């Protein structure tokens, strides 16, 4: 067992394949960034719709949130990769296919837009109604009210929660290997096929993810601390 433990923690194999693994990690980060942008934009729209005065758009957006929050990411991923192109092909009456990377970005982006829209909604509701009314009384336009009154306060309020969602999103990028996106877990599996040494490879992957997630979330916490404390409603 001690021998196996030493093998598991041996970084030599990881170092040997550092170029491939790093390329995989870059793929993860790229997919994370793209789907984070997609998810945030969707979540903003849906979050606004959820707090709108229109009953219909409230209902529709609540349905959207529930749908994407309660469907497993892996199922969405497989659905986006296999089913979406077929449906689009039928609708547009021409043959379409979707490559793994866009499918992954779409699936993760939509999945996390569900979680994030809930965060956006919380943030929007956290700003006291009196602030909006005061801004209206000053003659600010709706866009201005959102941009200058609601967002700065709401964002500060929900930042820790949003950060958790982004961390989950980054962790979820590991599943894109399952539709053959060449991310870090894909590379780890490929190297394992070649070297047949799962111990250092999978242990290393787990430790690497752990280190990245903890380091990134701590850094962002520290960096945003002062910004969050400034101008609290």
């Amino acid at each position, binding site marked *: 067992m001690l021998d196996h433990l030493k093998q598991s923690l041996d970084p030599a194999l990881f170092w040997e394949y550092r170029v491939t693994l790093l390329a995989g990690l870059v793929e993860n980060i790229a997919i994370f960034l793209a789907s984070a942008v997609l998810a945030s934009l969707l979540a903003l729209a849906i979050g606004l719709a959820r707090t709108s005065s229109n009953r219909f758009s409230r209902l529709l957006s609540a349905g959207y949130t529930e749908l994407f929050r*309660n469907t497993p990411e892996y*199922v*969405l991923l497989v659905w986006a990769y296999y089913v979406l192109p*077929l449906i689009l092909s039928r609708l547009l009456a021409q043959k379409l296919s979707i490559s793994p990377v866009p499918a992954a970005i779409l699936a993760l982006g939509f999945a996390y837009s569900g979680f994030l829209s809930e965060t956006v909604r919380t943030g929007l509701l956290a700003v006291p109604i009196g602030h909006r009314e005061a801004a209206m009384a000053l003659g600010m336009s709706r866009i201005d009210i959102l941009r200058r009154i609601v967002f700065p306060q709401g964002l500060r309020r929900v930042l820790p929660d949003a950060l958790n969602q982004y961390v989950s999103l980054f*962790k979820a990028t590991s599943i894109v290997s399952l539709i053959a996106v060449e991310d870090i877990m894909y590379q780890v599996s490929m190297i394992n096929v070649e070297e047949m040494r799962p111990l250092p490879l*999978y242990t290393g992957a787990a430790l690497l*993810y*752990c280190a990245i997630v903890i380091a990134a979330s701590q850094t962002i916490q520290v960096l945003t601390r002062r910004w969050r404390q400034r101008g609290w409603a």
Partner: protein
Amino acid sequence: MIDNFNRYVLGNADLLGQGLLMTLRICVQAFLLAIVLAVAVGLARVYVPMLRFLAAAYIEFFRATPILVQLLWVNYVWPDLFGFPQTAEQAGIIALALQSSGYLAETIRSGIEGLPRGQYDAGRAVGLSSLQIIRRIVAPQVVLVMAPSLISQMAVVIKSSTLVSVIAIPDLMYAAIRIVNQWFEPIEILTSTAFLYFLVIFLLSLAANRISDRFRTRFGLAE
């Protein structure tokens, strides 16, 4: 479309049903194991100074690694390292349990630390032992606070359990993908599977919300 639905989904209802049963079996076992682990780790984190660091590391590690990575790690590394799990099914259960236990242990910790100090002092003042204080004062309140997050964690376990198909456990997702690979007609089968998962998880989340609302009004446990 209806034809395809009848043919691929209803025609394979037994296969999908078996898959769903496997999913539920794995989730229930993983969930029970997660609770046991979480209680042990959570208590160690708060009450055992010698194990505090170890428990904190455990919680951080399992919260910060993706479930797929843990699943493959447990499946490929643990048999050599610890001599178990012996089957893929056990590996799936352990990996799902480990992930959830990290989150739940953190909930237990915050539940315990959220209790006012005065309650311990009061317990001691009426002559309760430390164990009695935990059992009769701390535990009931922590369980109340935890109940909603326990149910939402159950939903997370079901979501994560879709990945156990990767290590060839014949769960619902595995059955669905097998049918897809057999007939190359993914639309109906994958959409139905997605909807089935959605339904199960949605109902659980709904229950979690109901319960947390109820607790909040009945026991005054405001967040």
